[in-house]
């Protein structure tokens, strides 16, 4: 599936099952994708597509009634799922770090931000307090926080949403990770702040050569930031490519086409959008059949069988007028 580049992360045949009211339901099935070193992959989908669950499976943050039933998640040659996640625990915060959607929830309200940024760094190295503080100021500068010397002792409530997100990102790069997992980091932000954070991600990618796995429902953000894309729908990957532009210019799967025609573009012609009447069936109402294998369009680009996303019933009747 991949070209000659080295893969930082290889997810293969991931299947996740959720137990609801005593019964098992397949939440995602046959999810396989790679993140190449120094590249960013966008994992996009609407609500219920399974993109967040996939990310959380990698992080090891699945809810108690949800479990991985098959597949592997290989980072640096070792399966994160093996051995009850022992290897993953050693790698989270150092080799792999995370940036979440709600910084006000992810940050500790009673801990100074400087300390939070270097928290895991201090744990994994032998920096003393002064050195850690210096490092925190460095990192804050790197993520674009002005007057870091003054702000390093601030508490989260003294910061705006955009600032808090920068703090989260500083914490994420503190240990020099190879891969950053992002769970909708800009969704809760205003569009002007979002633009700044996306620029920050771009800058960090080129400076630090770090890889990104970026989960979001916002295709525009993925278009700006990512090299590769995987589109998820109802627990499966319906289309993915190592070159995002190919998918954007000639989407092959009907769902991708529908998604792209539904997005209002500020730089496109002013015309009527094409929408879907309803979202995909919920987890408990889905077909429990296993996902069939993907077909290759060309090396580095594959799609799921067309019958999978039964879009006919979802197409808005208005589109056919």
């Amino acid at each position, binding site marked *: 599936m991949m070209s000659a580049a080295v893969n930082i992360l290889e997810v293969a045949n991931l299947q996740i099952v*959720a137990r*609801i*009211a*005593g019964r098992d339901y397949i*939440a995602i099935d046959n999810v396989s994708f790679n993140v190449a070193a120094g590249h960013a992959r966008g994992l996009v989908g609407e*609500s*219920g*597509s*399974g993109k*967040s*669950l996939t990310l959380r499976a990698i992080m090891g943050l699945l*809810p108690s*009634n*949800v479990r991985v039933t098959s597949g592997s998640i290989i980072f640096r040659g070792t399966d994160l799922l093996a051995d009850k996640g022992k290897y993953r625990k050693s790698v989270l915060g150092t080799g792999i770090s995370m940036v979440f959607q709600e910084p006000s929830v992810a940050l500790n309200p009673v801990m100074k931000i400087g300390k939070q940024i270097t928290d895991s760094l201090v744990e994994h190295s032998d920096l003393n307090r002064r050195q850690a503080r210096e490092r925190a100021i460095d990192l804050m500068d790197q993520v674009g926080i002005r007057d870091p010397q003054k702000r390093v002792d601030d508490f989260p409530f003294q910061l705006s949403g955009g600032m808090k997100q920068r703090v989260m990102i500083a914490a994420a790069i503190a240990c020099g990770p190879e891969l950053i997992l992002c769970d909708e980091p800009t969704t809760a932000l205003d569009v002007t702040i979002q633009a700044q954070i996306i620029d920050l991600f771009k800058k960090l990618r080129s400076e630090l050569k770090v890889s990104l796995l970026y989960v979001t429902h916002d295709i525009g953000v993925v278009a700006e930031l990512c090299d590769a894309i995987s589109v998820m729908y109802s627990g499966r990957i319906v289309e993915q490519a190592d070159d995002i532009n190919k998918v954007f210019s000639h989407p092959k799967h009907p769902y991708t086409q529908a998604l792209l025609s539904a997005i209002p573009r500020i730089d496109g012609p002013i015309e009527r959008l094409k929408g879907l009447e309803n979202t995909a069936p*919920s*987890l408990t109402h889905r077909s429990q059949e296993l996902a069939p294998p993907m077909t290759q369009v060309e090396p580095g680009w594959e799609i799921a069988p067309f019958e999978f996303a039964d879009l006919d019933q979802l197409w808005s009747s208005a589109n056919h007028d």
Partner: protein
Amino acid sequence: MSTVISPSHNIFTRIKGFRVNNFRLYLGLFIIVVVIAMAFFASYLTKFSPIQQDLVNTLQGGSAKHFLGTDNLGRDIWSRLLYGGRTDLFLASAAVLAPFIIGTFIGAICGYFSGWIDTLVMRIADVVVAFPFYVLVISLVFILGNGVSSIFIAISIVSWVSYARIVRGETMIVRSKEFIEAAQTGGISNRKIITRHVLPNVITQAVVYAMSDIVLNIGVIVTLSYFGLGIVPPTPDWGRMIAEGQQFLAGGYYYLTVLPAVAVIISSLGLSFIGDGLAVVLRVKR
């Protein structure tokens, strides 16, 4: 975050969606059903009258004739337990109704309108709650005189506060929901909004609390009658049985006091289990 369970906000759909392994709830229901059945069918379960004295056969132990023995006045203990249960349980349940209705109403008004009425009423509530519960109830019954109605009034004056607070909190949550604003935008009167939209959505927490309130009331009634207040003899009642039986403990006639105490404990446990179980069921579906 993906939506893995879809919430259902209605008390009736929640009851339908029982969890099979809700042990507590079933245990509690079982106990209470048995207890209530025994109290209800008291006349079938014993041929003795609870107040009939038999001064010849006092302080008898358990026998074929008197299942659990007789007390110091020759009254059949098993019969007194059953009929006493009737009195106490009925009173405890009935005494929940008035505070429930009053407290819910007040809480909804305060939560919905806020402002000065909320401040005023909540301060009054704070004053009521500042007194230790039992002290207040006992004093009130003492002032109002003996009798069942005194108990009702005393408990009502004190208990409404908890319901008011619970419902007020829930109302404030619901009030900020957009369907309330939509109703206001549509021109629906506040009165109708409260009765049709707010109350049905806030009442479940009050119902759960009512269960534990009944337990509390059992304790109150039993305590009151232990002190000779409230229920007037010769009406049988567990508290009085416990009080009267005390003096015979030294003589080894422990069952006069212990048996009614055990009855109180079992009933309270049963209701507590129901309350716990209900809370779990309702919480899951929120």
